[in-house]
């Protein structure tokens, strides 16, 4: 069963500064600043290719990355919900 699909704001809405292992994001539409760890920046980047649910996002990420652990889909869904709560992604 397909889960909820998410979209991210366009790249020019978010200013990103990479720190040592973390990134600081300024989200212009909300005026909010967030400190994020991997895989949040990677998820946002992949979502800019178009709306996706956790399964589709996992496929996009797998094209570029290997994963640790057996619960990748659950972890990605949890990350999406977290990004939604922060206002960095929205349901499509």
């Amino acid at each position, binding site marked *: 069963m397909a889960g909820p699909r998410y979209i991210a704001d366009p790249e020019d809405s978010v200013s990103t500064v990479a720190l040592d292992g973390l*990134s600081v994001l300024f989200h212009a539409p909300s005026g909010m600043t967030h400190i994020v760890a991997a895989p949040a920046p990677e998820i946002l980047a992949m979502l800019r290719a178009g709306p996706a649910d956790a399964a589709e996002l996992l496929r996009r990420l797998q094209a570029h990355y290997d994963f640790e652990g057996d619960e990748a889909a659950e972890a990605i869904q949890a990350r999406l919900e977290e990004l939604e709560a922060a206002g960095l992604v929205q349901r499509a």
Partner: protein
Amino acid sequence: MSGTDREEVGGEAAGGRTFVPSRRTVLVLGAAAASTVITVRPALAQTAGSVLNCEIPVPGPHAGGNYIAPDGNLVPPGTQGAAPPLARPLRGEEAKQLLRGSTPPGVNPQSSQAYANYIRRLQSGMSGFTCYASLQMPR
């Protein structure tokens, strides 16, 4: 760092370029219960300017093209009496003017009440909500 396989994670998300890793990297997704996002509360991050310059799209991208009824609800495009989508997002300062009952430059006065009511109906998770919420916070 040169000569290793290490790749900077997320670094290319900055500066307006699309993030495309050039080499396969192990991405740590974290446990489902782990948190990877910390939001810096406006009280810490803000200046008055940052709040007044945040943006509220009317309507948000989830409802692109829909019109706004006078009560702030989304209605199909072309609905009689409804206001068309704004061509650009409202800045925090402009949203504040609308909520006070005045009309910022570039906004049709006939439609300003619909836009103000749309902003009042914003809920958590909708684009622009955190901007609206920030405008309500006392300083």
